[in-house]
């Protein structure tokens, strides 16, 4: 049992890492990866919401009638997203201002409903917890990786700390929208190269 739980956790970190392998949740992946700080904030929010909603959905999976399961899942997810939004406003207001609309938009993020429907509604609580944590952390890692590349080349900083010194001319294409697409595309390409081997 422990081994399976560990497997469910680990698969989210590489094998099924959401933006690269499942190619889900791309909207925030492209939008909030200008800086590592934003990416980490977004990642934390997703970890919390995904883990909680996975656990709740799997705990009540036998009580929900089949016909209305999607509606119930969305209610669960939306509840946790709203909690995250309120807590963020109360404790990390500047981050909340930066992430803006993308926090409430976690509700319609495909990863969450996808995990609830494809995994949590068919598996036990502990496996769902492991799955939620794994996928959430994988998502955070992926966002951070993308954000690191974009921030280092686009602003010349990493987590607001200067990397190249003052003589570096920022390559501002990287922090604009096209830079996000190009960067994500290259990363997907690299991931696929690994997969082929």
């Amino acid at each position, binding site marked *: 049992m422990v081994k399976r739980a560990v497997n469910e956790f680990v698969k989210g970190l590489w094998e099924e890492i959401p933006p690269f392998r499942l190619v889900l949740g791309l909207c925030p992946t492209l939008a909030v990866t200008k800086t590592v700080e934003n990416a980490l904030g977004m990642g934390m929010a997703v970890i919390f919401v995904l883990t909680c909603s996975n656990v709740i959905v799997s705990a009540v999976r036998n009580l929900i009638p089949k016909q209305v399961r999607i509606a119930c899942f969305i*209610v669960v997810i*939306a*509840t946790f997203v709203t909690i995250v939004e*309120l807590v963020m*406003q*109360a*404790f990390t207001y500047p981050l909340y201002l930066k992430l803006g609309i993308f926090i409430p938009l976690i509700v319609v993020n495909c990863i969450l409903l996808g995990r609830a429907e494809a995994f949590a509604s068919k598996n036990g609580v502990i496996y769902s917890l492991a799955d939620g944590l794994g996928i959430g952390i994988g998502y955070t890692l992926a966002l951070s990786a993308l954000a690191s590349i974009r921030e280092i080349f686009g602003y010349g900083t990493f987590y607001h700390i200067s990397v190249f010194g003052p003589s570096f001319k920022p390559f501002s294409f990287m922090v604009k929208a096209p830079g996000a697409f190009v960067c994500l595309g290259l990363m997907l390409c690299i991931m696929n190269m690994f997969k082929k081997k």
Partner: protein
Amino acid sequence: MRDILKLFLAVTIFSAISGGLLAFVRSATQARIEYQQLKFVKGPTLKEIMKGCQNDPIVDRFKVKCGKKEKTIFVGVFNGKPKVIALEAFGKGFHGDIGVMVGIDVTTDKILGIGVTTHGETPGVGSRVKTDPSFRTQFKGVSVNESVKVKADGGQIDAVTGATISSRGVCKAVNNALALYKKLKPEILKRLKNFKSKKLSS
């Protein structure tokens, strides 16, 4: 029929639980959210006005009834006494309302300082009413019984060059704040008498 009832019940119960939970979280975080919003939206302006105060004016705020609405009053402590209050008022600018925070010394009834909090003025032109310190400082020392006007209207304030309408908007907001202060003064003084700062820094 029974099936429909079951579906209905499932969704209702789910929504009710989540609604209750959210109401609880909201009431638990409300005070802090209000504080954070004030701190990041009005905080910088307040700090400027109340330079050298010994407390946190956002923590030491209270609300005064003004007609049907409530007005938030921020209190600044100087030399251990609640000496300055600040309140926000609005005046019509070039693009929508300009919000101005006005700090008033209650012992002398004079303006201690003003600062623009929100505005939609043209960047680089009208927006200078917020950023230009020499415009701001002209309001210092004006008595609450005077009314402020730009020089073009026969008043005492030099308008920001090229932004007369924005400057007028600020004057209007300041006048509104002064009028509010005069109206609310008895209530404010009563509250200040029993005032005790929640957090004092030495």
